[in-house]
Structures are given as C-alpha cells and as structure tokens.
C-alpha cells in the first residue's frame, strides 16, 4: 500500500507552491504521412494546474502530450513553457508512459537514479519510500508487478522535482484496484508538490477524479473544455461526479447534442 501524505505535509508544501510552470500551446499542427492529427490546436494551462485530456483512441491526445514533451516536432505552431522563479534555464519536464519503461538491467534504486549524481541517493530513497517501495530498492524490475513498476516510474519522475509532469495513460494497463490506488498517489504528490500536470487518459472517470479541468479532443480540435468544480478528495459516488461523467461521455459517444446543465 502506498502511504498517503499527511495533511500537514500537504499544507506545508502548499505554502511555497511555485514548482508548477504554465504551458501555452499555440496553433500547433502535427501530422504523420499526410494525415493531420492536430490542427491549429490551442490550449493554455496555468501553473500548478492539473489538466486531463480525454478522447477516443487516435484523436491526437497522445500526440499533443508528446509535442509538449518535445518527442514530436510540430509542423506548425509552438509550445511555450513558462518561466520558473529561482530557476535559470529550461523548466524540468518529465514524462510517465503507459509502460513503465524501467531499465530491466538496473535494479530499482539505480532506475530511480537515472541521470542523477550519486550524491542524490538519499533523495531517491526518500521518493521511493513515498511511493511505498523502499524495501524493493535492490530488486530487479522483472520481479515487480505492473502497478509496482509504474510506482517506480513515478518515483523516477518525481526525484527530479519536475515543473511539469506529463502522464501518457500511465494507468492504462493496470487492474481496477491498482488504478484507484495509483490515482490517489498521483493526486497526493501533485497536491504536495504543486507541479503542473497533464494527464492523457481514455477513462473519463479517472479524468474527473484527478483533474482541475477536462479537455476533450475530437478530430484534432478541442471539443469540450470543462472545469471540474468538485471539492477534493472526490468520490465517484457523488451526484455531481456522475452527472459530469455522463455529460462528457455523451459528448464523446455523441449520443445527443451537448446541453448545458443547470448545476
């Protein structure tokens, strides 16, 4: 079980919540082999915001994330990351992929330490403890379950204390219980550290339970941009949760035209 962060810890860290960086995606177009995936795409994300991007498969949501990560070069448009106070140079951007992408030939701790100075070992151990895997530091990735591997991947991203964390369907291949556990863990670290988060998911309920804002992409454009005004921690059983989920799902499945709800 991953430990939850004490409320005191969260409150203390919230004071200096300046880790997050703003993201401005301006008229970005990406295409592969003549097929346009994103066309003149515009989105602004403010510092420290948690944005979920949903849509059917192939709608371009992963491509958007990869463009922000610099793994995809847009044919047109720009992605501008904001400045971080007290940090010269580029903001630190980390990506968590659907598969954990741990190096199978490195033990867990060296995996978390990837690209870091040996002096930061205590830091890496601390983060590993935060994701609840301190005692697995000397194991091989092959001996871990899928959920544990994703927690290591999260630790590897967090040890860099990123300004922007990009999550590309990181929970897509996990079982239902492990998913919920991981969602709580991600929400907790986001709340305590205050980085900006972009989560790509096909699970609307996951998007609503985690994000400040849910963006639906359809045909390479923003089809829906909803602010989630449900107080945290969110329970799926609440009426507002269910209503919002229904609304977004209807739009995804195009069961009926979008009607503004009263609440």
């Amino acid at each position, binding site marked *: 079980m991953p430990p939850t962060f004490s409320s005191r810890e969260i409150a203390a860290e919230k004071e200096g919540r300046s880790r997050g960086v703003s993201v401005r995606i301006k008229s970005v177009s990406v295409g592969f082999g003549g097929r346009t995936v994103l066309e003149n795409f515009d989105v602004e994300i403010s510092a420290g915001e948690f944005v979920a991007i949903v849509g059917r498969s192939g709608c371009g949501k992963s491509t958007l994330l990869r463009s922000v990560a610099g*793994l995809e070069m847009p044919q047109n448009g720009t992605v501008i990351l904001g400045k971080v106070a007290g940090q010269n140079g580029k903001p630190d951007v980390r990506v968590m992929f659907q*598969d954990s992408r741990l190096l199978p030939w490195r033990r867990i701790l060296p995996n978390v330490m*990837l690209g870091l100075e040996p002096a930061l070992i205590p830091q890496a151990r601390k983060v590993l403890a935060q994701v609840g895997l301190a005692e697995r530091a000397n194991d091989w990735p092959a001996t871990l379950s899928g959920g544990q591997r994703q927690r290591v991947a999260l630790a590897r991203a967090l040890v860099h204390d990123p300004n922007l964390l990009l999550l590309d369907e990181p929970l897509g291949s996990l079982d239902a219980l492990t998913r919920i556990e991981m969602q709580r863990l991600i929400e907790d670290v986001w709340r305590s550290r205050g980085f900006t988060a972009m989560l790509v998911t096909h699970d609307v309920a996951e998007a609503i339970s985690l994000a400040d804002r849910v963006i639906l992409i359809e045909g390479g454009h923003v089809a829906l941009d909803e602010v989630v005004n449900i107080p945290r921690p969110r329970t799926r059983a609440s009426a507002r949760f269910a209503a919002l989920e229904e609304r977004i799902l209807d739009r995804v499945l195009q069961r009926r035209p979008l009607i503004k709800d009263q609440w």
Partner: protein
Amino acid sequence: MNEGQKSPGIKTQLRPNIPATRALPWVVPFSLLFVWQWASSAGILPSRFLPSPRAVVSSFIELSISGELWMHVRVSTLRALSGFLVGGGVGLLLGLLTASLHWAEILLDTTIQMVRNIPPLALIPLVILWFGIDESAKLFLVALGVFFPVYINTFYGIRSVDRGLLEMGRTYGLSGWPIYREIILPGALPSILVGVRFSLGLMWVILIVAETISARSGIGYLTMNAREFMQTDVMVVGILLYAILGKLADLLAKGLERYWLRWNPAYQPTR
C-alpha cells in the same frame, strides 16, 4: 502474477536432486566407453584404427608427465584466445560503429557481408603465402572467423534495442556516452553474448584446421605428428583435448551470460 508471489511453475517429473536422475545423462557415454574397451580387448577393434580407452588414458598420463601435453595445450589456448580477442574486439567495435552511424553502415556493411560469405579456411593457401606458417597466420585465421558472428550480433543487438527505452532516456536528458552505458550496450548485450558463444565454438574449429595444416606446435601439430608414427592413442588424446577445451570455452560463455544477464529471468537457473 500477483505482487510478491512466485508462480509455482510446471512440475517436472524428473527431480534433479535424486541421484538416479543426476546419473542419467552419463549412462550413454559410459556404456559406449565400456563397449569400446571390450571391443578393443577382445581384438574386434584393431589398435591401428582406434586404440583402447586404457591406451588413451595411459598415453594421456605419459604426455602430461613429460610436460609435452601442457606445452601444446598452452600454445593452442594462447593462439585461440589472442585470435578471439583481436577478431571479437574488432567485430564489436565495427558492429557498434555501423549500428550507430548511418553513413558507416552504408560505407561498410555491404563489404562486410560480401567478405562474410568467404569461408576463412578457404584462405589458408593465401594465408600461408602471406604469413608462412608462424603464429600470425593462425592468429589471422582465427580472428577473421571470430569477427563475423560478433559483428553481426552486435549490429543486430544494437538495432533491436527497445525504442521506448531510448525515448525515455532522452526525456531524462541522456545522450552521448551515458545513453550507451545505460541503455544501448546493456540492451544489446544478450545478442552480443550469443555472438560470443558462437565465436568461441568457431574459434576452435578454425584453429584445429589451421594447426593440422601448418604448425610446429599446438594440439593440431601433436595429432598430425602422431599420425606419421601411427600413434593412434596420441591422436585420440589430441581430439579429446579439443572437446574438453571447447566445452570449457562454452562454460565460460555461459558463466558470463549468467552474470551479465542476471537481470533477465530467462537467463536465471531454474528454481
């Protein structure tokens, strides 16, 4: 698989810890040995075709006491290993180069693939002409034969490194030597070791032929010299030595695999 739980695995019917099962692989070799000895002592197998196992053992003891055997073994091992180091080293470096740099592949790969199809042993007449029958001739032949398996498997290993891991490495700011050290080389290692194992087998084959044709020392020389005097027992000793040395080389390669690939469940000894 669940967290922290080990899968029970398939129940094997033969349990390796029972002595009878342990002895099983040796039943056939020992029976053959027994039949061989019996046929020799009964006079069915004349010693000018094949010596009796007892004669082989006594000539082995005789040769090792005189020190002649060890001298030849040392010479042959040295030749094999130096040829392997030169050929394998060049194969590894060129494989790294052509797999990493596109222009190097275009420049060199066609040539290497053409040369690969020439059996190294076909070059023996030419090699004798170039180097005579001294050490460099054997070194050259072994190095040439060992080069190709290492080269091809290094190239293939690097090309088949998981793209996802490379992409992940780049998002963590790795480039240049660190990306080779952390991702490319460990990822290519299983394939490189396949090449090494293959090369070690080839190394002895080429050396045997090279030594029987042109040498003044070494195991091949020992057997060829014995033929002149019809010493079939010495010839069999030489042949068995190759078998033992080949097996040792393979054990070494297996040991390297066990150690370097211990992260990979496929290379772990079965529980």
